[in-house]
C-alpha cells in the first residue's frame, strides 16, 4: 500500500471533504490553531462580561423600560422656535467650519511631516524617518477628544481648541498616509531630475508632488468626512460646535432642545454620508 493512500485525518485534494465512513474530527486538538484561537476568544469574552459587573437589571427590567420610555417621551416635541433653530444652525456651521479648518491645517502639517518621514530615493539617508514616524504615531494614537481636553488648558473653552485637536490627530493620520504614498511613487521622474543635478526641493516640487497629489487630495477629503462626524461630538468636553450645545442642554435637562440638537446631528451626518456616496459614485463612474 502506498503511503499516500492511507486514510489520514486531513482531507486531500481529490478526496471528498468529509468522507462518509470517517468519524468527525475531535472537537479540540492541541495542534489546531483555530481551536486555541476560539478558546482564547471565549475566555476573553467571558472574562470581560464577568469582570465588568454589568448592571443587567438596569436595562432588562420593566422598571428600566419604563424609565427609558419616560426619558424618550421627554424629547417630544422638539423645540423648533426660530430663536433656538437659529442657534442650532449656527452651531452646525461652527462644526462644519471646525472640521474644514482642522482638516486643512492637518493636510499642511501632515505634508510637512510626511517629507522627513519618507525615504525619497534609494540614496536618501532619511535620518529623520523613524523619529518622525514615532511622532506621527503618537499624534495618531491620541484621539481627537483627548487632544481637545488637553488643549482646553491652553486654548480655553471654545471651537479653537476643537479645531486644533482635529488638526493634531488628523495630521498624524494624514502624515502617515502621505508618507506611504510618497514612498510608493514611481522613481523614474525624480531620478531623471536628480541625475541632472536638480536639488531635492525642486525634485520634490516637480516630480514627487505632482504624482501623489490626486491621492493626497482623496485621503484629505476622506478624512474631512470623518472629521465632520468627530467635530459634532468634540464639544462634549467644551470644544465648540453642536456637541457643546448638546452637553449644555442635556446637563440642564432641556430635553426638547436636546432633541432638536440630536436631530440636527443626524441630519448633518446623513447629508455628509449621502454627499460622499454621490461624489464617490460620480468619481468612479
Amino acid at each position, binding site marked *: 500500500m502506498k503511503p499516500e493512500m492511507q486514510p489520514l485525518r486531513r482531507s486531500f485534494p481529490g478526496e471528498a471533504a468529509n468522507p462518509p465512513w470517517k468519524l468527525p474530527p475531535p472537537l479540540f486538538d492541541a495542534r489546531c*490553531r483555530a481551536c486555541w*484561537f476560539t478558546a482564547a476568544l471565549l475566555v*476573553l*469574552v467571558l*472574562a*470581560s*462580561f464577568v*469582570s*465588568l*459587573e*454589568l*448592571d443587567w437589571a*438596569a*436595562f432588562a427590567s420593566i422598571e*428600566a423600560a419604563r*424609565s*427609558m420610555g419616560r*426619558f424618550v417621551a421627554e424629547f417630544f416635541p422638539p423645540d423648533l422656535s426660530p430663536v433656538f433653530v437659529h442657534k442650532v444652525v449656527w452651531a452646525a*456651521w*461652527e462644526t462644519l*467650519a*471646525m472640521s*474644514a*479648518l482642522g482638516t*486643512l491645517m492637518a493636510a499642511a502639517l501632515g505634508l510637512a511631516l510626511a517629507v522627513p518621514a519618507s525615504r525619497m530615493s534609494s540614496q536618501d539617508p532619511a535620518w529623520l524617518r523613524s523619529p518622525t514616524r514615532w511622532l506621527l*504615531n*503618537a499624534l495618531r*494614537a*491620541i*484621539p481627537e*477628544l*483627548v487632544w481637545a*481636553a*488637553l488643549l482646553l*488648558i*491652553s*486654548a*480655553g473653552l*471654545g*471651537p*479653537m481648541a*476643537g*479645531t486644533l485637536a482635529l488638526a493634531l490627530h488628523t495630521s498624524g493620520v494624514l502624515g502617515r498616509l502621505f508618507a506611504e504614498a510618497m514612498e510608493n511613487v514611481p522613481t523614474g521622474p525624480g531620478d531623471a531630475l536628480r541625475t541632472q543635478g536638480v536639488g531635492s526641493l525642486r525634485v520634490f516640487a516637480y516630480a514627487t508632488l505632482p504624482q501623489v497629489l490626486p491621492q493626497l487630495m482623496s485621503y484629505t477629503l476622506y478624512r474631512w468626512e470623518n472629521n465632520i*462626524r468627530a467635530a*459634532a*461630538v468634540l464639544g*462634549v*468636553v467644551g470644544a*465648540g460646535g453642536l*456637541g457643546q450645545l*448638546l*452637553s449644555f442642554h*442635556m446637563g440642564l435637562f432641556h430635553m426638547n432642545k436636546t432633541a432638536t440638537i*440630536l436631530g440636527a*446631528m*443626524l441630519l448633518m*451626518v*446623513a447629508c455628509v*454620508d449621502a454627499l460622499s456616496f454621490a461624489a464617490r459614485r460620480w468619481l468612479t463612474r
Partner: protein
Amino acid sequence: MPPARSRPGAPARDPALAARVLWLSLALVLLWPLGAATEFRPWVLWAPENRKVTADFVRSFWPLVYSAEFMQMVLRETWRTVAMATAGVTLALVLAVPLSLLATRVLSLSALSGRMGRWPAVLRWCVRATLIVLRSIPELVWALVFVRVVGLGPTAGVLAIALTYGGMLGKVYAEILESGESHATQTLMRNGSGRLQAFVYALLPSHAAELASYTVYRWECAIRSSVVLGFVGAGGLGQQLDNSMKMFNGGEVATLLLVFIALVALADRVSAWLRKALA
C-alpha cells in the same frame, strides 16, 4: 542640456502667475469665514497668562507618577477598557448578525425569479434604515443618553458601543455578503434548501475570512472609542484621564497617555497579526 535659467537675460517670470495669485486669494477669501466661525485666534496661545498655564502644566508631566498604588489602578482601568470594548462588540454581534441576515438581498427567495417581492423588499429597506440610523449616532452621544438612564459606569459604555457598532457591523456585513459571487447560494436555494442552510453552506464559507477580519478591525476601533467614552463617565482609562486632567496632575496625565498609546499600539499589532492569520 543646460536649463533655460542659465541663459543670461532670460525673463525670470512665472507663466502661471495670474492663476496662482487668483487661486491663492480666492482660498484666503474662503478661509476667512471659517476662521471667524471657529474663533481661530492662534495668538491667544501666546498670551502671557495662557503661556504660563501651559508651561506649568507641561512641566508637571515630569516626573511620571508610577507609584505601586497608581500603577495597580492603571492596570485595572486598562483591563476595564479592553473588557468594555470586547463586551460591547460581543453584544453588537448579537444585534448585527440577525439584522445583516435580514438585510442581505442574496438570501431572498423571491428574488430568485426576477424581482424581489414587495414585502420582502420593504422589510429589507426598513432593516437597512435601522442599521444606518444606529450607526449615524456617534457612540459618545449614545453614552451620554445611557449615562442618564442607567447611571455612571461601564454599563452605559458597553451599551453605547453595542448599538453604534451593531449598526456599523450589520451594514458592512450585509455589504460583504452581497459583494461576492452568489452562484453557489442561488443554486442551493433553487434546489430547495432553506435560506439559513444556503447561508451556512454557501455564503458564509466564501466570506468568512473577510467578515472575521472586519470584526477584528472593529474590535480595535472599539478599544480606542471605549477610552473616549470614559470622558462622559463610562469608566475605564478615559475617566481616570479626565479626573487627572481636571486636577492638573501632569505626572498622572503623562503616565496615562503613555499607557494609552501603548494599549493602542498593542491592539493595532494584535489586530494586524490576527487579520493576517485569518486571511
